[in-house]
Every structure is written in C-alpha cells, then in structure tokens.
C-alpha cells in the first residue's frame, strides 16, 4: 500500500510539471499567430495538457486504490480534483473554440489551485460514517466538474478584461482588475510562505486559552498575529507583533488569521516588485500580448462555459447533494453553510444567465460577473471550510 501512495504522489508532482511545460507552449502561441496560420505551438500545448491530465488521472486512480475510497474526502483531495476538473473543462472548451491563449491563463490558475491544495494535510484519512456512500464520488465529482467548467468562464472573463479594459487611464475597471491579479499573487505568496517555512521545519508553540481551556497551538510560520492571551513556549520563536482579537473563536482561528496576513503581505511584496519591474499596471503589461484575440470570441467562450457548467453544477452540487443528504442526514436540504453557498452559486449563475438575455450585459459586465462567480466558488471552497464551517468541514 505504501508504494502505491508514493506512486500516487509522484504522479501528482509529474502532472504539475507537465502542466507547467504546457503553459510555456501556450505562451509560444503569442508569436505563432503573427506568422500566419501555424498552429504548432498550440497543438503541442494541448497535447501536453492532455498528457498532464492523464497523469493526474493516474494520481487519482492510484490514490483511490490505496485508500480504498474516492480521494475527494478532504480539502487537499477535493481541491486537487477541482484543479484537475478545471483542466478537463479547459480541454473541452479548447476543442470547441480552439483559443490557444486561453491555455496560457487556464493552466497557471489550475497550477495555482493544485499547489494551494498541497498546503493542506495530504495524508490518506479514513472515512467517517456519513461519508461512506457511493454518493461520495457521484456527488463530489459532479459538483467539482461543474465548478471546473464554471471556472473556465472566469478564466475567459479574465482574459477578456485584460484584453478589453481601457488601460490608458485609471478607472474602476483597471483598479478591480489589478485587485484580481493581486489576489492571484497573494495565493502565490501563501504557497511560498507555507512551503518555505515548511521546508525549514519552522515551529512556534503557544499556550493560549481556547474555549476556556488552556491549549497548545503550533504555528508553522512565524507569528504576526498570536493567539489571544497566548504565551510563546518554544525557545527562540518570534513573539507575535500583536494578538488576534478575542472574538475569533476556535483552536486555530488565530493561526489561520496569521497565515492569511502573511499571504496578504506576501502578495503585496510580489505585486510591488512586479509593478516596479513593469513600471505600469500588470494588466496593462499583459494587454499587448492579447491584441490578436477576438474579444467577442472570448466573451462567447466565457458564456458557453457557464451554459455547459451550470447544468452540471446543479446536478452535482444541488440534486445529487440532496439525494445523498436525504440518505445520510434524513433531510435533503438543511441550510448548512456549504449547502447555502452551493445555492448561492446556483442563484448567481441563474442571474447571470437571465442577464445575458438583456442587451448591454454582454462583454465587460458579463466578464465581471464571471469573475464574481469564481469568487463565490472559491469562497465556498475555502472560507466556508476554514472559517464558517459546518457539517461539511472534513478538512
């Protein structure tokens, strides 16, 4: 069994690097277009992407065999799978519209998601009774596929915005676009900070009251925000700059806040450096590379992704979820935060689809909605699990 799970994680590493290589080939298509109709770089790019996808599928299958249950049962497994579904959805839309440059953005975002996933505990965990059902993989994989397809809509929306937003003057559009880019940088920062201190085996232990009892809290990164009324107990560890407010509850609330702050600051540093080198807005620097793209085509890709993804998401995240909930918890709907946020996602894209009926909601507005939808999906994945939590916090 041990060998199989090692093989499994190696396949995931391999897939990660294969996606990275594919990204470069999609990058190569920027020049490709200039020389006319050659599709060499794009064809190589998509081929490598498919190889990467199959490799990751190998990870998924071997891990399934090793753990004897579908590897979608904790935050690491689910998020990795979500990254894989984003790639899969990209491949589908690539073959409908053949927009090479979409790959240049879709793959890095999938990479970011997979790297992000690896920051959470990766060991194979047993299934608690409520998860022991075939519906685990039926519901979770379908919901995740739906989210993956909807995320392609975000990728296309982002490409559209970078291509279309007027960069000659500062506006709400340019600022929000920079903010989206900053959030991506902050995610990179989170991954870097967590991996660097993880590699250094950094540890700082605190003693602090949690729900009225003294508990030991171990930080994996230096404390900016320490636990409320906490005391450093590891020797030589950096004391916190300030204490987390006392109303933040739960064993790890302060720790999470601390990592969050690190990510925000890290993101600022990366963004600042990039701005310093580029000497203009990040989106403004990318814009010229996308000049050859037909904005209307990108808009259609974004819409098409919602049109394809919405039914899949509804089936997986609402209908299959209800059937399973009826079996496991005796009610098909219980207003658990995860359920509510799935409903919010449903409402949001339903509103999007209705707005597309009206004039004036294509193009920029539509692209912003796609970005917002992705924000909701990520909120449901991350914030609901780590902050709000409820029946679904298995991570």
């Amino acid at each position, binding site marked *: *069994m041990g060998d199989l799970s090692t093989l499994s994680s190696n396949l995931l590493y391999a897939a990660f690097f294969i996606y990275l290589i594919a990204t470069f080939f999609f990058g190569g298509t920027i020049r490709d277009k200039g020389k006319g109709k050659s599709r060499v770089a794009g064809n190589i790019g998509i081929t490598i992407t498919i190889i990467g996808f199959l490799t990751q599928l190998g990870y998924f299958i071997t891990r399934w065999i090793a*753990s*004897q249950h579908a590897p979608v049962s904790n935050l690491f497994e689910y998020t990795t799978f979500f990254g894989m579904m984003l790639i899969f959805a990209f491949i589908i839309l690539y073959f*409908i*519209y053949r927009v090479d440059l979409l790959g240049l953005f879709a793959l890095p975002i999938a990479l970011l998601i997979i790297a992000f996933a690896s920051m959470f*505990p990766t*060991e*194979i*965990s*047993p299934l*608690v*009774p*409520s998860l*022991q*059902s075939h*519906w685990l993989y039926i519901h979770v994989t379908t919901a995740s596929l739906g989210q993956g397809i909807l995320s392609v809509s975000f990728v296309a929306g982002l490409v559209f915005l970078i291509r279309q937003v007027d960069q000659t003057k500062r506006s709400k559009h340019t600022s929000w676009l920079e903010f989206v880019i900053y959030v991506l940088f902050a995610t990179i920062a989170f991954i870097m900070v967590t991996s660097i201190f993880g590699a250094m085996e950094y540890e700082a232990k605190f003693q602090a009251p949690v729900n009225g009892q003294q508990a030991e809290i171990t930080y994996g990164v230096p404390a900016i925000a320490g636990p409320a009324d906490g005391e450093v107990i590891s020797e030589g560890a950096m004391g916190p700059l300030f204490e987390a407010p006392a*109303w933040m509850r739960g064993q790890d609330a302060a720790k999470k806040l601390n990592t969050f702050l690190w990510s925000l600051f890290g993101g600022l540093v990366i963004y600042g450096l990039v701005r310093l080198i580029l000497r203009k807005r990040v989106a403004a620097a990318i814009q010229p590379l996308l000049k050859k793209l037909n*904005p*209307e*085509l990108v808009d*259609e890709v974004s*819409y*098409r992704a919602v*049109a*394809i993804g*919405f*039914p899949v998401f*509804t*089936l997986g995240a609402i*209908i299959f979820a*209800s059937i399973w909930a*009826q*079996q*496991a*918890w*005796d009610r*098909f709907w*219980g*207003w*658990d*935060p995860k359920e*509510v*946020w799935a*409903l*919010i996602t449903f*409402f*949001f894209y*339903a*509103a999007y689809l*209705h*707005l*597309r*009926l*009206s*004039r004036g909601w294509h*193009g*920029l507005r539509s692209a912003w909605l796609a970005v917002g939808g992705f924000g909701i999906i990520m909120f449901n994945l991350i914030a*609901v699990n780590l902050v*709000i939590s*409820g029946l679904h916090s298995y991570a």
Partner: protein
Amino acid sequence: MNEITCECGHINPEGTVLCESCGKPIEKNQHIDGNDQKELLNMRYDGSARRSQTYNRTIIDKIWNFFSSVKVGVWLIVLTLIASAVGTILPQEMYIPPNVDAATHYRDQYGLLGQIYYQLGFHNLFSSWWYMLLLAMIGISIVIASIDRFFPLYKTLKKQKPKRHELFMKKQRVFGTTESDQVDVERFKKNLKKNRFKVYEENGHILAEKNRFARWGPYVNHIGLIIFLIGSLLRFVPFFYVDEFVWIREGETAMIPGTDGQYYMKNEEFILETYDESDERFKEAIQKQGGPIPKTYQTDAVIYERTDEFIPGKEPELKEVKTASAKMNHPIKFDDYALYQASYQLNEFKEMTFKIHDKENEDSNYGEFTVDLTNPKSEYELESGHRVVIDSYFPEYEMKDGEPVSVSKYPKNPAFVFHVYPPGETSPETSFLGIGMNIDATGENDYKLGLVNFDVRDVTGLTVKKDFTLPIIGLGGAIFMIGVIQGMYWNHRRIWLQPKENGVWIAGHTNKNWFALRREIDKVIDGTHIQKPVDQYEMKD
C-alpha cells in the same frame, strides 16, 4: 382586439412587433422591443405579441407586467442570494447546541453582532416570513414570465414562413448579399441537410432551421422549479410529512412516534466502531487526529406492528415485521416510514448495586440492593432488616449554585440522597452518593453505602420520517434538469435564403453562441458561391 394585418396578408394579434409570418417590422410597435433605437432587430422572442408589453391599464396588467419582467426576476434572485449569504454569517438556531437559550447563546458567543443577529431574527432566517415571501415571489415570477413568453413565441415560430420581408433580412445580425448568377442552391440545401437542418421552401425562399426545441428549455425547467416548490410547500401538510425523533435504550422496546401507535421498535444493540489505529493506510491521519475516528454507527433493531386495538394503558400485542440495522447512509425502511441513525449516547447507566456496611469496616455486608436507574423504587427492604429509602434521585447530577440538580432525565451521571433505616429505627441516616462521591452529611452515620456493581448500556437516537413529498420534489428536480440541458446544450439556429434578381440574400439567427453559428454558415455555403455573410453586431465595449 385590434388585430394587425400585415402587407403579406397575415393577421397578427395586437402588440405584435414582427409579423408572425414574414417578419416585417410593424411600424407602430417597434418601440416595444427597442428596435427603434437600434440598427438590428431584437429577436429575443421573435417579435411576438406578449401580454406584458401590450396592456398596461388595469391593476392586473400592472401586476402581470411586474412579475413577467426579467429585470424583476433577476432582482428577486439577487435579493434571495444576499439574504442566503447573511444566513451563513452565524450558525442558524438549528445548529446551536440544544437546551441552550438562543438569546443568551448568541449574545455570549458572538457579542454585539450575535445580539443584533438574534434580534433581527436572522438565527431563523431561512424559515422567516420574508425569506419565504422572496421564494414565493420568485415562484410567481417564474409562472407569469413563462406564460407571458411561451405561448406567443410558440405561435410565432409555428406560423413563420420561409418568405421573409426584406427589412427583416437586412436587420438580422448575420446578413450578407451575393451578386452572382452561379449560386448553387441545390448544393446549399444539401449542405444544410447534411448539417441536420430542416429545410422549408416557398417560391425559392428558403428557411433552414434546427433545434427549435431548445427554445422550450427555459419553460420546461421553470415547470420543474414550480413542481419542486409545490412539493416543498406540501411538507406543511401533516399527511405528507412526518418528522419525529426517538431515543431507545438497548434492550428496550418503544413505540415509534409519528406512526399513530401502530409501530414499535426494539433496540437489540447499538454498535459504535472506530478505525483500527494500526491500519497502515490511515495511521498518520489517526495520529494527527489525536483520537479514534468513528467507522460505524449502527442500531440492530426489530420492528413490530401492533395487532390489537389501541386502548390506553393496555399492553400492546406485537407482531414482528422485520429485523434490520439502521446505519449512517442506510436507514431502515418499513411501510412508508424510514428510521435514520441520527444520534447516540454511550454508556448510560442501567442499574447500580449498593451494599450497606459498617462505616469503619469495608468488608462487612448487611445486604445488597439494585436500583434500576430508569425506574427506581422508592424503598428497598434488605433481609438484614435494613430499609433504604431514596430521598432524591438526580439522573444527571450537577451542582448549580450550591444545590444539587439534575440537568436531564437521562442517567448519565446518577446521584442519590439515601435514607438508611437500621433495623427497628425510625430516624434514618442520610448519605449522599454519586459517581466517585460518598458523603456522610452529618458525620454521625454508623453505616455506609458502597457501590458494588453497575451496568451500562447505549442509547440510540433515531429520526422517524415519512415523506410523500419526495417523489414530487424529485420529479420537479428531474424536469428542471431536462429543461436546463435542453435549453443550454442545444442552440436554436435559423438560416434564411432569399432569391434576388442577380444573386441571393442570406441571413442567420441563433438564440446564443454566434461564433458557432457563423462557423456553421461557413460550412453550409461551402461550394455554393454564396458570399460569407457578415456579423453586423460590433462589440463596443
């Protein structure tokens, strides 16, 4: 009715924007679809006469128009979305610990925010009247908007003729003219059929159409939603919906609530299994968890049906119906009911055996007595002549404000105040006994009580459900899915070809995905000498 006769001879209902037959814009109605402001025709509902756009006089018209508006629909969706998000800021009341006062809980746990949240009723947001009202308004909007659009659109698409008015052609988004005498119409038709278009012809005018059924997708999915909402409403009717909860101790038989006394269940055994810590696969995860991880919750049960008339106080006659186990994800089903493994209590005390001995000598024994903790006797006579009276019994004992109290009626932490009457005595000695506690209140007792033995058992908690709304809700969900897929995965496309003196005109329309339509047109004009039409819509952002 002020019917409108078009120059093609077709009679259109009042409010028509584009002639149902030839598509000619009806001049006085162009403002309805905003065509007067634009170069291109608004083809969303094919210029059909919709009630909401035609009448606006009576109060009924106004209500109708309000609910049939997509804008209103979107607003309702957005408001519900925001309300739902607010409902997740703090846990809903059903997720806070039971037996606590909600008002204090929200204040103590979440401070001012919690207090405001509670005051505004957000702790029960999803069952609040205004949330229900929002959902109901969405329901009404779905019905009215669908009726408003479906029937006119259906009629128009049924009555459309291949021969179109010139203005209609020119004002289509995809339009092109070809001046050539070499146009190969036969090949064009063959190409269309190869691409699965249905081809209609009228004096050389061609209409090619595919996937009209995709246009009905939205209406089908709206029907599904309505059925779903009706199903949810029926839950308020007791006949359709039973939701009860029952605790049953191991070895006990109890009536199943919600079944009108018809069914009983015996709890043979409750089983809680945890994962083996030496399992290679999960070793790491279990260590990290720092405690055992549960593997199974299971109740082995026997279901009985009462065979005799229900008479209060009479012991029921029971007939075994089935033996089964209720597990997570595997409820026991019988008749129309289902029993779900929902909760459990481990090691509840069943009985305790005490002995009386000399205070100074633990080995002496004046006799033993056993207290059944769910049904204690008030007095126990021992053979040695000692008499023990239970003065007070606290099933789940706790000290509150210096007073012993019981926080529940379940024997989880039993404690007693015993009065021991030595043989022949009339004034008792008082002892206070609990788990790990044996207090001689006066300090003058000669005898002492000691715990000899105890028995524990598990209690299982099961939900009892009967739900006739499930098939209705399931049907609604299924119809919704069919409708969404029908509307989203197929596109309604039409291509018109009009013969001209020297060449042809071509126009195309799709309800969505214009790029794909243009690619398809490229395919069907291949080799026909028809010029590629242009997309007259320019993105202006």
